[in-house]
């Protein structure tokens, strides 16, 4: 079920699926959030999954007020309140995972626990995080997921006429929102704040992540207070929950239970 709630910048799209204990899902870079196999997989394991789209994605209004990471964190803080996710467990991916960590560092009670799929936010000179945009669209798809067909909903046209123009604009706005989070590189000082994250964290990484090397799990584990588990999803890319929804949902369900 899609809700259109309101936040300060306008509409806020929230996908809700399943019944049971409420768990949030915060999407990653570029992709089309909302209804997707991973949400269904997680819901089928006995959860009510609440998945808000971040500003600029889907029908969530972009905000002209967002100019830096502080503004993004403030926006997420408001969004989890509006979505009824404050204090709930959260599964977050990629840029969404970075934002979740940033928020948890300044508002430690924001989440009861975190399952993070390939979070961004740290930087190692020996293994720089890839630039997702300095490539062609097909190159971009290859960076995001191991199986490029999983992102078809985002990258391919399924409309015509005015709907096609609207879809093009929506995709462009979502890509712009991602760019604003990773440009010029996705490191905004999280390493100085991450020790404030007090909730239990589970780290999940696709073995074939082309954006941020799976060994970054070590870097995150070294500075997080309470890492409960580390998992590698074989054959999955950066957005591992798109490549292998079932495997990531199983890991998340196990961590949340």
């Amino acid at each position, binding site marked *: 079920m899609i809700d259109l709630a309101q936040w300060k910048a306008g509409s806020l799209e929230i996908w809700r699926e399943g019944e049971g204990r409420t768990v949030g899902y915060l999407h990653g870079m570029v992709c089309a959030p909302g209804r997707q196999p991973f949400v269904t997989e997680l819901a089928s394991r006995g959860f009510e999954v609440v998945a808000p789209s971040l500003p600029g994605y889907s029908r969530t209004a972009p905000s*002209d007020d*967002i*100019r830096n990471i502080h503004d993004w964190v403030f926006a997420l803080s408001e969004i989890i309140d509006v979505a009824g996710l404050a204090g709930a467990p959260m599964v977050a991916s990629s840029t969404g995972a970075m934002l979740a960590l940033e928020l948890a560092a300044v508002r430690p009670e924001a989440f009861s626990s975190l399952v993070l799929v390939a979070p961004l936010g740290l930087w190692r000179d020996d293994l720089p995080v890839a630039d997702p*945009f*300095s*490539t*062609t669209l097909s*190159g971009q798809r290859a960076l995001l997921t191991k199986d490029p067909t999983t992102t078809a909903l985002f990258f391919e046209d399924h409309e015509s006429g005015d709907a096609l*123009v609207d879809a*093009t*604009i929506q995709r*462009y*706005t979502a*890509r*712009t*929102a*991602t*760019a*604003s989070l990773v*440009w*010029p590189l996705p490191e905004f000082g999280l390493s100085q704040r991450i020790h404030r994250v007090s909730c239990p964290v589970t780290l999940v990484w696709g073995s074939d992540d082309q954006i941020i090397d799976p060994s970054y799990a070590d870097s995150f584990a070294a500075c997080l207070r309470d890492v409960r588990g580390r998992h590698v999803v074989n054959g999955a890319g950066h957005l591992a929950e798109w490549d292998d929804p079932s495997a990531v949902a199983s890991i998340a369900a196990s961590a949340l239970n």
Partner: protein
Amino acid sequence: MKTIWFHLMPYPELPDDFTDEHRSVWVDIDPALFDARVGHRMYNEYIDELEFAASVGFDGVGINEHHSNAYGLMPSPNLIAAALARTCPDAALVVLGDSVALYNPPIRVAEEFAMLDCISGGRLVAGFPVGTPMDTLYAYGNNPATLRERYHEGIELILKAWTADDVFSFNGKYSKLRYVNCWPRPAQKPHPPIWIPGGGSVDTWEWCARVGYSYLYLSYFGYKAALKTMQGFWKCVEDAGRPANPFQAGFAQFFGVADSEAEAIELYREPAEYFFNRCLHVYPGFADPPGYKTLNTVRNGAEGMVERAAREANERAAQAAKKAERKAAQQSFSAASHMSFEQMVEKGYVIVGNPDQVAEKTVEMAKQLRIGHVMSLCHFGNMSRDLAMHNTELMATKVLPQIRHLWDDEWEDEWWPQPLPASDRVMPSPRPTVSR
């Protein structure tokens, strides 16, 4: 019509296999390709050429800003303009310009432009480009989501710094300054004329039309392909209720003049092919980062100039690859992907011919596009200084007299610098001889 001699300052010694061995002329070009001895020679020869152009009668000399770019080696156009301000005593200094969002705080642009305007005695044209994605987003790390807002705020700050009667505070979203006090102030009042170089952004057309700035279409692809863009701009001028004064618009065009058309083709083939086939080798992945275009431009489906360069390079490469595959030929990939000089001339990328032919085509171009400012590229690619000066001299002495008076009887150029009165002007003095 005013003609400005415009220099890109390309690196003249990119290797023959550049397009085979390197993915882009911009952003991540191999630093090992730069030879400082070539750089030393190049900058000095290029400044010679600009000074020569001013001395033979061009209305202005023009320069612009690029970063990490082998075809545009002016990271700081203001440095070059400072040299020219002293050595070109009469020509307008058209700086196209400073990419405002790259200066932090942008008050630096207000200050340096004011310095140039004072040194030159009020001959500065202040160009404010957004800047290409390669310059602003990749080489300088600006965020595409905020680039244009930062740019517009910067221009607001600069204009206020130039015109405010008192010291003021500026509480912008991106620049916060307790004390803004631009010393020196520009010589021109209220400020130098503002030209906005652009690609194909619909919003830039509307903005220039609305506030009355001169729009300059800096295309590399000739006047024949520029018609749609310029018609879009003029429609915006009409919608804004302003007169269609041709001096509110300009266009960049490559020229090659010789005593005969055949000689022109012979002389300018190599530098043109060097520029279009080697210098415009831009990796497509850099050309269209999300957020750079306005949503209106996305909706309009307009294609940016650099985006086009990257696309054409890619298409030529793809065509060449297919051709090579089909024929299983031994020909090199780069040779097959190159565009011929004849194709460039046919498409209008370069106007070549004897002086009369060039004048005729230039007038045709100016009337079609309705432009009062021509940014003439008489040096391009790896052209030698001697040839650039030959081209420049023929253009100045035999073409400009035939095109200069276009529009003058109907329109006033409201966007041209207004120098200080001659009585107030100071010329560089000859150095006194010192006996040792």
